[in-house]
């Protein structure tokens, strides 16, 4: 019996080994190496050869804390995390509930919602920039039509650029979240709703007491993944504003990228990446420990 268990374990490891190897080579090793680099004045062309990358203790971490772009990026990422993620989840749950009901052209709507998610960031960001063009864009034309005088400058304004990127990010990820919610909703047994109807529950009461608690594992999954995505947002920013106007749309990932590949300062960039990882890990642990109170499995 024991021998069979050993054999089963071995078989399992053999089957797992390709992905385990990939995980170790492409995730664990770079991560550990990045921690190593973060304590050195790293010369990306010579590495450790001829003492080209001396140990500098915590100075890269001190530089990271003092780095204005990283600090600004941290604030911006938190703003997106706190505002955009809940908005995205609420909106996608609402859309998913509607698409889960028997409405006309349900399949077509599902495809339409999912399209932005599979469109390249560059293409969709350019379209978004045109839609939100302060002078000629349809959004401001509409607002002008409603008599709004002080029109937003959207991506061209330091006050509006980050909210515009937030709107874009919600629009782009909505389809994915809707899809995940739909799969969650389809797992909810219809008899609960039938029983609630017999008891005279309203649509809102059904949503509050049946739908929301039963899709809470899905909500939790999306909260974790979208939380991580919102903290690592970069491509959208790079295409739409490259961190500007001024520093108004800098994010942590963009700051890391520029430190590494524009300033070629790999030591500080690695320390930024380590701090970035710790922040994400911290937030995820908090979310994980809090889930016991509201997630129903």
């Amino acid at each position, binding site marked *: 019996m024991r021998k069979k268990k050993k054999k089963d374990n071995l078989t399992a490891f053999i089957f797992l080994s390709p992905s385990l190897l990939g995980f170790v080579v492409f995730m664990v090793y770079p991560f550990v190496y990045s921690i190593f680099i973060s304590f050195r004045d790293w*010369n*990306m*062309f*010579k590495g450790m050869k001829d003492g080209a990358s001396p140990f500098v203790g915590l100075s890269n971490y001190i530089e990271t804390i003092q780095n204005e772009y990283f600090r600004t990026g941290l604030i911006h990422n938190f703003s997106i995390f706190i505002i955009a993620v809940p908005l995205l989840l609420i909106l996608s749950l609402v859309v998913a509930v509607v698409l889960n009901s028997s409405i006309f052209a349900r399949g077509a709507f599902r495809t339409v919602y999912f399209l932005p998610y599979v469109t390249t960031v560059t293409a969709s960001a*350019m379209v978004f*920039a*045109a839609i*939100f*063009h*302060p*002078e*000629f864009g349809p959004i401001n034309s509409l607002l002008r039509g409603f008599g709004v005088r002080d029109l937003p*400058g*959207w*991506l*061209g*304004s*330091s*006050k509006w650029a980050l909210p515009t990127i937030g709107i874009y990010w919600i629009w782009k990820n909505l389809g994915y979240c809707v899809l995940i919610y739909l799969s969650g909703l389809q797992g909810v047994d219809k008899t609960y709703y039938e029983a609630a109807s017999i008891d005279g529950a309203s649509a809102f009461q059904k949503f509050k007491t049946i739908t929301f608690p039963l899709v809470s594992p899905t909500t939790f999954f999306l909260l974790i993944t979208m939380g991580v995505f919102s903290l690592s947002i970069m491509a959208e920013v790079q295409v*739409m*504003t490259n961190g*500007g*106007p*001024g*520093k108004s749309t800098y994010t942590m990932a963009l700051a890391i990228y520029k430190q590494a*590949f*524009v*300033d*070629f*300062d790999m030591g500080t960039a690695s320390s930024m990446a380590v701090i970035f990882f710790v922040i994400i890990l911290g937030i995820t642990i908090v979310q994980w420990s809090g889930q016991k109170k509201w997630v129903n499995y």
Partner: protein
Amino acid sequence: MKKIMGRVLPAILVATMTMSMLSGCGSTTKNVNTNGSDESFSGTCVVYLMGSRHNEAVYQALDALKALDKYADVTFQINDDADETLNEKVPTYVAAGQQIDIVYNNNPLFQQSYVDGGVLLPLDEYVEKYKIDMEKQYGKYAKYAYNNGQVYGIPGAATVWGLYYNKQIFDNAGVDYPDDKIPMTWDEYSELSKKLTSGSGPDKIYGALHLTWPMYWYGQAIMALGGGEKFYKEDGTSNIQDPIFATALERTYNMMNVDKSIRTNADIATTGVEGTAFLDGHYGMMFSGTWVLNWLADKESYPRDFEVGIAPLPVDAGTTQKEWGVCGTFSLTQTAVDPELSFNVMVDLVRETTKRTSTEIYADQTVSSDLLFKETVEKISEFDKQITVDQVRSIFLNPDMIFVTEKVAGKNPSDYQTVITEETDLYFAKEQDLKTTIDNIEKRGNKVIE
């Protein structure tokens, strides 16, 4: 026997493959003389053309090099990708150990970043060995070879700017064309831009097209002060409090937000407008470099339905022509397999391109460049009959004109320019006043200069 062969054969195969790989990646130098006269090389030379790829003469020069006995045993691998982000990718390739012998830096700020980041190799050893007198060979462009007191580049293409204008828009506005010999002042330029502006909405005609490049405002200031070096005071700190910077900023702000004769910075940035937009017929003028001549000559790739005129760049004051520009350089990277071979290629490539170039000035002063602007302008004049070779040469090659360095030229120029751009973005977007902008540039600029 079979067993032995089974072990020996793979070993021989692996050894052969390893040797052939090593000999393929490396190179050997034969018959090297200190005067560099009749030496020859072998091996592979990988050239990343990057910003120099627009010039057909570079390709002709490379063909000429291949025909030389000196390079008969050299294999040239030319990368002429149109990837605009190659400047950021090349250091990563080099760090990964990929053989890249020669790169082209078309921007001194990139060159300084590459030097500070350790991407490039110093060339002093080879300059000395081959007895190259930088000042004699590259004249006024020699200064672009130096970073931190060492030679890091062989000067290549020099940019010179001029004023291009849409004759149709001038005609419609009933305004005289700019003089092709006496430059207008910046005040006259902004006034003219206002006169040329008409209409509204997507069909609006703007007096001029300004890109987001900071040169479009600070060029006016450094022209008056004497070049990008004047972003710094004598003691090396920021000189941004010089009133000329405020004047230049304010003039551009007024064109953008008061006269509305140029599109706003934010508008240009978010819609990704590039210089070729001038050819869509919505802009009266655009000051830009000689690369525009390529667009004007190639009507198939850059169609337009109006005639273009060319005039000298506006000046701060007086009637003497003033110009700004920079000179790109060819450099060796850390993964250059045979630096001596690559050094020779760079020097010869610049010399041979100088002989053949028609669209942009090349830096070698020891050979004549009789073809300069000839072929290109002849093509342009098929459509724009009033543009002549003599006219273009008098605008871009006037020996009496004052030439200043275009970019921020001093300590940590890249970060300093980033600070300048970030602060002026806010000023142009009406989110920060002029005084705060200047004060912030000084404060943050001094921090990065330190």
